[in-house]
């Protein structure tokens, strides 16, 4: 009986810690009104710009739909991926000192990581919703739940990329440089404008989610292999980011 009560107290304490970590992460983000404006204004601007810019391209044999639709689809995916990615990066780098203090007061580092990841997931849900609504005004989306799920997945995936980069590179300038180069290579390769060769392009984070999202928009049926590969990518990145966060953002954060 006493053991069971002790276990439930631990669970409650963990949940409470997670709640504190999450609310502090969200408060930190919403404290700056420009961040909220960004969250609302940039997704429509990017989705529309991508579609519009790509409408000037010819329809090439390897393109699965018209360039304008391809652009709007790619723009939606990128918006859903990169805002959580940038948030993930700054969550880890900017809050390094705050996390250290929380850690000293008894917060396990894994709980802090989960709180940061939950904040990224909240941002992913928001950007996925906004960008999908914008996309539906530009083109028909055949399978809305699958499309939404994929967008949330890429948000979490890039959030983990951002957190991993932030854990490895402790300064904002270096972290931002790396994230921007990784994201832009991924973005250009997954955009569908250029045909890429070989298996190398499949190693980039957006390759499989792009296939899944395209299938959801067109209603062509989700390939199990793509879904498994995207899920595995998230899992591996999650383990790597957790490992890097718990080991590399240790006590040196206070120095």
């Amino acid at each position: 009986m006493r053991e069971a009560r002790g276990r439930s107290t631990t669970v409650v304490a963990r949940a409470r810690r997670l709640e504190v970590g999450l609310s502090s992460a969200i408060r930190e983000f919403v404290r700056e009104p420009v961040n909220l404006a960004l969250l609302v204004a940039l997704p429509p601007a990017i989705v529309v710009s991508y579609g519009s810019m790509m409408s000037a391209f010819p329809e090439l044999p390897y393109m699965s739909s018209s360039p304008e639709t391809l652009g709007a689809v790619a723009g939606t995916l990128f918006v859903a991926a990169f805002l959580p990615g940038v948030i993930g990066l700054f969550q880890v780098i900017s809050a390094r000192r705050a996390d250290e203090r929380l850690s000293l007061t008894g917060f396990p580092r894994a709980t802090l990581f989960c709180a940061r990841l939950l904040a990224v997931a909240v941002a992913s849900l928001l950007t996925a919703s906004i960008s999908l609504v914008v996309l539906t005004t530009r083109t028909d989306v055949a399978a809305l739940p699958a499309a939404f799920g994929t967008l949330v997945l890429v948000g979490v995936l890039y959030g983990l990329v951002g957190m991993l980069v932030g854990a490895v590179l402790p300064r904002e300038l270096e972290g931002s440089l790396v994230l921007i180069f990784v994201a832009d290579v991924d973005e250009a390769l997954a955009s569908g404008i250029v045909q890429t060769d070989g298996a190398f392009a499949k190693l980039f984070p957006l390759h499989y989610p792009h296939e899944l999202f395209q299938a959801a928009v067109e209603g062509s049926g989700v390939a199990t292999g793509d879904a498994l590969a995207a899920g595995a990518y998230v899992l591996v990145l999650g383990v790597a980011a957790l490992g890097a966060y718990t080991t590399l953002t240790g006590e040196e954060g206070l120095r």
Partner: protein
Amino acid sequence: MRSARTTFEMGLREYVRTPVLLALLLFLPAYFIGVFSYVMPDQSVPVDVGGETLQVGMQALVAALMTPMAAALVGGIAGLFLMQSARDVDTRLSIVGASLPEILLARGGVLALAAAVASLVATAVVTLTHVPEQVGWFLAATVLTGLLYGTLGALVGLVLNRLAGVYVLLFGPLLDIFLAQSPLSTETHAVAPYLPGHYPMELALDAAFTAGVDPSPLWWGLGYLLAVALVTGLAFRRALRVG
């Protein structure tokens, strides 16, 4: 002038003090161009350069597009963080008597150096696989792109916070250089001529694939740079007063 030199040296020292940053400035442009050269198929595509249609290899085309873009990304981020990290210091410098042109000269010098280093690295990497027809002009176009985006990054850094600034700079150069200025497109997008990458990319593609280069995009690009620098200077002066 002495305070401009001291501020420039201090800014430079901050870069030199972080070997990771220096390594990234060398590695990232090389990685960027290397990846694109590697994954592109070896096929020819018709492109419109300098008013005539040429058959160009896809790898060479993407390498020519991505070299100025690498400089734009480095320049943009360097400009953004230069303004963000130096804001407090610059306010103090102005209080102790450094004039606005001196501070601007020092910060602009650091930014120009970062853009030049990134451009040199990117151009050196691209010559390993595809030597542009006019290397000097191609380098000039790449440096101009880096400077333009560096100045724009500084402007973004004065208006937005770091998170928002990084997000804007993540999409801006790609939309401009990779999509709007792409020679693969059959028609010029309505906004493309007004974007910062327009004149540098005209010059870069001309220098990459034709033997004779028309220098007029360089002058137009420098004019664009001057206009952006003027706006950034005014925003900087306002930020100093507010600070």
